[in-house]
């Protein structure tokens, strides 16, 4: 096997372990948490004992924990995440229906944030002192503004007052704009800070002096040399943020009444819908590991010094 293939095989084996671990922890946490899923499913205040026993048997919750755990693992191996207690639909179906919405929003937010941050960083890194100061102030404000607050203001102004964008729902591109902007605003602050700092660091290196001494323009220096150096920390951050956006966009989803994994997860937790919770956790863990793998590969594209397939 070539070193690259061996590296990939090892990473994939680790990914399987991570998913397995996440499923196990979720299973344990849910069964340790107080509250009875059976009563949550029935919903009425004082169900009869017979009904409770019957539903418990229906959901296989009367079996020993070990059996339930083995059942879950067996299902995972077959790609079957079970059936939702509340929705009475296969969990896979529920998640697949949400995933498209979630991915669309996460990728849109991330790309928007990256484009704006790169432009800001290239324009202000190590030059234009006034603009740089204004930009730093804005970054500080946006990075520390809570998402729900930003979202509410955008809704109030752009939707209710000016009627530019729909306030709720997920229809088409217009429906995507406000949620994506809401999420991107906080990210722009963080990304620009990281990008500018690493760009300024790169512009201070001797190779930047060499490049200037060859008659390279400031903008070319930033795009040809510094941007690549700045990309490495941003890649790390992007991977992490994309993972978080995919599994935790609940605030924005709720605010703009969009379907998505985050909302489904919160609803499932509140309703003690164990298969859905475990399903979302497993999918999120799998997405996280895949993103990490992609980020690892991208490091090697950006930085030739990392093109060794060790560890």
């Amino acid at each position, binding site marked *: 096997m070539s070193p690259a293939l061996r590296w990939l095989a090892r990473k994939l084996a680790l990914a399987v372990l991570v998913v397995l671990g996440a499923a196990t922890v979720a299973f344990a946490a849910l069964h340790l948490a107080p509250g009875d899923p059976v009563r949550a499913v029935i919903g009425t205040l004082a169900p009869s004992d017979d009904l409770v026993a019957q539903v418990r048997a229906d959901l296989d919750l009367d079996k020993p924990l070990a059996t339930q755990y083995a059942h879950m693992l067996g299902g995972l191996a077959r790609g079957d995440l079970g059936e939702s207690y509340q929705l009475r639909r296969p969990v896979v179906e529920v998640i697949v229906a949400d995933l498209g919405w979630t991915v669309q929003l996460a990728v849109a937010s991330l790309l928007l944030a990256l484009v704006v941050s790169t432009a800001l960083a290239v324009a202000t890194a190590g030059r234009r002192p006034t603009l740089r100061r204004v930009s730093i102030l804005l970054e500080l404000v946006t990075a520390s503004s809570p998402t729900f607050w930003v979202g509410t203001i955008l809704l109030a102004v752009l939707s209710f007052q000016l009627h530019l964008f729909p306030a709720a729902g997920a229809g088409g591109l217009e429906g995507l704009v406000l949620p994506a902007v809401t999420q991107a605003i906080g990210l722009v602050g963080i990304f620009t800070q990281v990008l500018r700092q690493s760009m300024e660091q790169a512009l201070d290196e001797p190779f930047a002096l*060499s*490049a200037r001494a060859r008659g390279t*323009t400031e903008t070319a220096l930033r795009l040809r040399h510094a941007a690549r150096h700045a990309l490495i920390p941003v890649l790390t951050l992007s991977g992490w943020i994309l993972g978080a956006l995919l599994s935790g966009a609940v605030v924005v989803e709720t605010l703009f009444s969009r379907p998505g994994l985050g909302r489904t997860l919160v609803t499932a937790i509140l309703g003690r819908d164990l298969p859905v919770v475990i399903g979302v956790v497993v999918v999120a863990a799998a997405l996280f590991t895949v993103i990490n793998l992609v980020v690892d590969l991208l490091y090697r594209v950006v930085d030739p010094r990392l093109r060794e397939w060790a560890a």
Partner: protein
Amino acid sequence: MDDEVVSVAGLHVTYRVGRAEVFAVRGVDFHLRAGECLAIVGESGSGKSTVARALVGLTGPGARLRSDRLVVSGQELSRLGDREWRRIRGAQVGLVLQDALTALDPLRTVGAEVAEAARNHGLVRRGEVARRVHRLLTDVQVPQPELRARQYPQQLSGGLRQRALIAAAMAADPPVLVADEPTTALDVTLQAKLLDLLAARKAAGTAVLLISHDLSVVALLADRVAVMRDGEFVETGCTADVLRAPEHPYTRQLLAATPSAHARGARLAGPRSTPARTRTPRPSGVLARVREVSKTFRGPGGARLAAVSEVSFSLSAGEILGVVGESGSGKSTLAHLLLGLLEPDTGTIELFGQPWSGVPEARRQRGRVQWVQQDPLGSFDPRYRVGRLIAEAGVDRARVRELLDQVGLDPAMADRHPRTLSGGQRQRVAIARALARDPEVIVCDEPVSALDVSVQAQILDLFADIRADLGTALVLISHDLAVVHHVADRVLVMRAGTVVESGPVTEVFARPTHPYTAQLIAALPRPGDAYAAHPEGVA
């Protein structure tokens, strides 16, 4: 004169530090003709690099430039805007910096870096870039230019990298080449080759401005020398005259501080401080026995690298043992083995008559072997003051003051932070810290490599004093043969992990038996060579 490519008069550069204006360069005049080399020699902070950067308009933010004349290729530069400066940079003046590992962009291929200047100035069409790069790399004698152009800087050896950097500076055929410490990061043999290369450019008609702290390097290339101190030229003249009959006391001091064959054993930096006394009687005889020690590392991709293989030697009490070799020869690994920081794969190390390798940490008497590193700042806890750094060895305040005095520092420095000290002062603190445990052996790994020549001279004197007064044995690891030759009693010459030659210093230097040693000695520049190179004293 009309063949003058560079003409500078009354050049002043100031930097704004807080509210104050600090002079970096004050009133410097020089000129440079085609095919001529002028060297500016000075120590760190003398302003020599600022002069180099003024020629490409890159003195940095906060710098203010004033000059009566700043002319390159017939064009007055002092009033240029950024856009016009860019037409000068690379096209009229090429700049070569010290260390190609950092002066070439590590994320871009060597070919892309070499081609950049030509592309910036529109001198090459897209389809012809590869051919141009090929020719440029061939010009600087880089073998396999097609392969090298596709590689990244860190995949090239130090010598090849530095040549690629010269190729990048020459890409747009500038009539002036400014080389700022171009050989400082290189070993002697590579240094000699690189100087040959610059000499070839000079012969081809390029005017070379060489910036260096090292008079012996300058002697090999420069037609004229300007000695710079505190932003001024204190002495200028043709190289042979300046080196043979220096007029200014500072030039004489610089020359005297350069360790060389005739000065062996002599003091380099003037009279000494009060002698220190030994606190414990010293044992005599052999302190360390190293028997056939090998250490192999696993590189990336599973490649095995024998850093040290089958090395044997002994170290006697009160002896200074020099270890010389180029970077990568295994010198530092040997130091780590001797310090017990690494375990040998095979072979044994005995210290003070007891096993040292392969014993539990608790049985090692670490206080008896101390370590001084190249960059002491990295080995100091940045929050500690000097006094606490030394007191860590378990000594009281009175002893700290005594130790500071012993290494030639004001005892009041105990209250300073190490980062506020100069490089030489830091190295003295590191030595005081090593001495605090009253060791029998101090392993010094490149202790003077980062220092200016006059400071290096003081530290070398200090080593000689420590040995004379305290009877401490020193292992002095250096890539610089002149340093080892100056103070060491015996020398080990290392290459690719093995000791190729060993013996008393005077004997090895006078009659090297291994061809590699002979090659190292031959590559060693000496200030006296200027006389040989310019017997008639060409102006």
